[in-house]
């Protein structure tokens, strides 16, 4: 089972409280100023408090309302899709676009429900060459194509 089930109102409330609270905490380090001369901390502090209040209201609503909706999280696609992006970012500078792109395709392919190895190999080869030709050669995006030191 890689699914987590939770009430949407409750969780969004918690998320707003968490994020809003974070902004409130950090903005206390900045100068608050006055209403006339607002400092850098004034606006975020007010907004952060709003977010916390809205979050609390949602949590209360979730506790008292009976008709809550439940969210189903699938972890597999998220893990591999986001993982593929991280792999790209990590691999690009040392290994160059061709290798980074191929690795990205490989990792991303695990996010889907079915995969065939020859398809992945073909896709990785085709897309990395296409990417190098179109983005680096034609559009001039300054990124390394081959591994460093090659």
């Amino acid at each position: 089972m890689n699914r987590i089930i939770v009430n949407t109102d409750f969780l969004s409330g918690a998320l707003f409280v968490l994020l809003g609270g974070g902004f409130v905490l950090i903005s206390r380090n900045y100068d608050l100023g006055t209403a006339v001369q607002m400092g850098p901390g004034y606006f975020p502090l007010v907004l952060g408090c709003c977010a916390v209040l809205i979050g609390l209201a949602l949590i209360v609503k979730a506790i008292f309302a009976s008709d809550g909706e439940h969210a189903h999280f699938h972890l597999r696609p998220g893990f591999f899709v986001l993982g593929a992006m991280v792999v790209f970012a990590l691999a690009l500078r040392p290994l160059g676009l061709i290798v980074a792109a191929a690795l990205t395709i490989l990792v991303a392919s695990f996010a889907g429900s079915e995969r065939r190895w020859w398809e992945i190999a073909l896709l990785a080869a085709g897309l990395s060459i296409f990417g190098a030709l179109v983005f680096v050669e034609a559009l001039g995006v300054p990124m390394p194509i081959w591994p460093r030191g090659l």
Partner: protein
Amino acid sequence: MDFVSNIALGLAVAVTPWNILYCFAGVTLGTLIGILPGIGPLATMAMLLPATYALDPTSALIMLAGIYYGAQYGGSTSAILLRLPGESSAVVATLDGYAMAQKGQAGVALAIAAIGSLIAGTFGTLVLAAFAPALANFAISFGAAEYFALMVVGLVAAIVLSSGPILKSFGMLILGLLFGLVGADINSGIDRFTFGVPQLSGGISFVVVALGLFGITEILGNLERSETRRLVSARIGRLLPRLAELRSVMPAILRGSGLGSLLGILPGGGVTMAAFASYTMEKRVAAQPERFGQGAPEGLAGPESANNAAAQTSFIPLLTLGIPSNGVMAMMMSAMLIHNIQPGPQIISGTPDLFWGLVVSMWIGNLMLVILNLPMIGIWVRLLLVPYRFLFPAILLFCCIGLYSVQNDVTDIYLAVICAALGYVFLKLRCDPVPLLLAFIIGPMLEENLRRAMLLARGDFGMLLTRPLTASLLALALILLVMAVLPKIRRTRKVAFQEE
């Protein structure tokens, strides 16, 4: 005549070989990506946004507008042929459009949608050209207090008219404002919420937020659904509608154009609302309403025209007041800001070539959709059959390259990963990310204008309310908010968006 000379100026700018080429490239690329099932105009624009950064401002905006129309048309195509709408405004096209395709009239359905869009686009462009200068003239005298109030109204109206639950949308709005504040504070120069990351002191880049929340999140959402894609039939049928067919849908197209132009000016879900409202209206005026849902051409022509007219007129608030009314306009605005153009009333008088060039190119883009894309429908259909397991790695890779290319740095990729994770959670929690995107781009200006207004009012918030325009705008925001919370309106809102 003023109007004629303005259009002539626009033609001179838009009908240069390069700008026509960019317009064509935008429309084609937009259709290409927008036609892929489950990818809407917002995601398409987010993906292609980095590609426009290198162009000069006018060309970039022309191309981006082309991408928008192309993506919207592509979305209608997959809605008609596959019953898979790329975005909420194309949902209506799945009703009668798909039914027509099932009856073997896919070609006629696609042609009616395209012709309706062109007529509505023409109408919307004329409305834009006629009313925008007047509105801009009115707004050019606005002070900081008026701007602050105007932005508040815009944001509030956007959440009231959007589809999500009010409380969540409001929360998303606040989060968007907060995310917009990340980076160096303009007045004091202090880095806020950057966690010591130097790349953040310029603020989170718009592409990161847009791609993370819309592009990547859509991939994640699509991967959860099992792949069941079947074209209604391999045959598209004849493309050209008969004259009698065209005549019978013409009233629906005209009604849709009018309704769409009107609703498009409103902040919030202008385009989606226009499509739904037009469908309801067509059903009401029809002699045999029971034909709707069974492949009634009016049920396709009306909404398709309405959403295109609304797409045109939704440029009005952005180009005259500097307020983006929906996610797509937030994209346009970010493209302007990247090129150091401040959207607002001074655009028309300050850079008339940009404004009128854009207006005319919108119309050219609509024309290109009909005369170039319709004959290419065979190619598009084949694209619809490419399995998703080939598409999403490619989209993902291009997103990564695009993210890198904005600042030639991998930091933006990591930030986009965070945004995408958040976006996925928002998707699951049914929190509409559009208010967040709107607030994200407006946030810094809202703070700036509030600070300036408060300085002028000597810190007395009541002083803001003594300015008649500011007071009435803020009152309007309050009324909208109260109305949205009232039970009766809430129910109507639910009904209006139930088909999403």
